[in-house]
């Protein structure tokens, strides 16, 4: 099963991509992008009322939801967001403590994954150069579709040194970027609980579809 674990729709202030247009694009590009679903990780927010089940039914793709929050160790994807988390943490705060957030999210039934770790300022690699490692990190986003040259390559050190699992995501803000990087899971994932459990256990790897898409141009 292949999921794009890092996407932004027009619910994020810097994206113009409607979720339904993502669905249409993935259906249209099915031969090149064998994506089974996406996880919407809107910036600094969680909308408990959002319901994408009608789109799931219409397009036959899984649509899960998380959030991308900002911490003193860079940006972090939070999966399995619930009321306990939103009560304890203000997702709009761009200076959340990662040392506090990541273990707490796990304790409250979710999983937090540092994203684009190779980016300056907002990636884990730079912070690990002068701060202690974070307790409770299980996986990092080793492949990010929005990273610049060399930024994804910096992440391998984290994986080798700390034994983190690796995931991939497009970090799409535009329709044509959806699914360019993703994560392949050995397990079948049908819910956010499945995703959290699988991310904790392992059995997944990042996938890069960018070369395949270039050949299609």
């Amino acid at each position: 099963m292949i999921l794009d674990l890092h996407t932004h729709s027009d619910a994020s202030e810097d994206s113009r991509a409607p979720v339904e247009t993502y669905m249409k694009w993935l259906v249209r590009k099915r031969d090149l992008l064998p994506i089974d679903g996406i996880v919407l990780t809107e910036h600094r927010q969680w909308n408990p009322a959002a319901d994408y089940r009608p789109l799931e039914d219409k397009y036959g793709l899984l649509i899960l939801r998380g959030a991308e929050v900002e911490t003193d160790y860079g940006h972090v994807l939070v999966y399995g967001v619930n009321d306990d988390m939103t009560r304890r943490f203000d997702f709009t705060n761009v200076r959340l403590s990662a040392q506090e957030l990541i273990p707490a999210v796990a304790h409250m039934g979710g999983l937090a994954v540092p994203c684009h770790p190779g980016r300056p300022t907002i990636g884990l690699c730079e912070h690990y150069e002068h701060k202690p490692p974070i307790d409770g990190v299980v996986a990092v986003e080793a492949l990010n579709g929005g990273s610049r040259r060399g930024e994804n390559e910096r992440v391998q050190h984290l994986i080798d040194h700390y034994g983190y699992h690796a995931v991939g995501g497009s970090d799409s803000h535009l329709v044509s970027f959806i699914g360019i990087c993703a994560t392949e899971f050995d397990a079948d994932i049908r819910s956010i609980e499945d995703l959290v459990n699988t991310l904790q256990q392992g059995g997944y790897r990042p996938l890069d579809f960018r070369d395949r898409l270039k050949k299609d141009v």
Partner: protein
Amino acid sequence: MALDFDRSIIGSEFDRTVFAPVTKEAIEDYIAASGEPAANDMAAPPTFVVRLRGHRWMPENMPNLGRTGFDAGKDIAFGVPVRIGDVLTAVSTVHDIYEKTGRTGSMAFVVLRTVVTNQRDDEVAVIDQKMMFR
């Protein structure tokens, strides 16, 4: 340090301007200057609304969010067409102020929303002007 400002400014109106009736000449001038085609003989191109200038483009009590800033883009949702003779009213509010972090550090964004209506109170456009400060 988190952004420190009086959040009551969000949602506050800082400008309301009623413009003179739209003339055929103003529409023709806009088409000539912008190259935007008109929808028909009576209606202006949708982007005509960007030529409107209110009395004030920022609130007087705007918090100091940094030493430098720049235009971070404009989103426009178009409503009914602007027609010759329309009397347009533009009402501007501070729609949002938020902070985010990026490769170069933290940034504060201000979203100024201008809602343009015509003499029938039909919505002509909603313009979100973003400014970035650091």
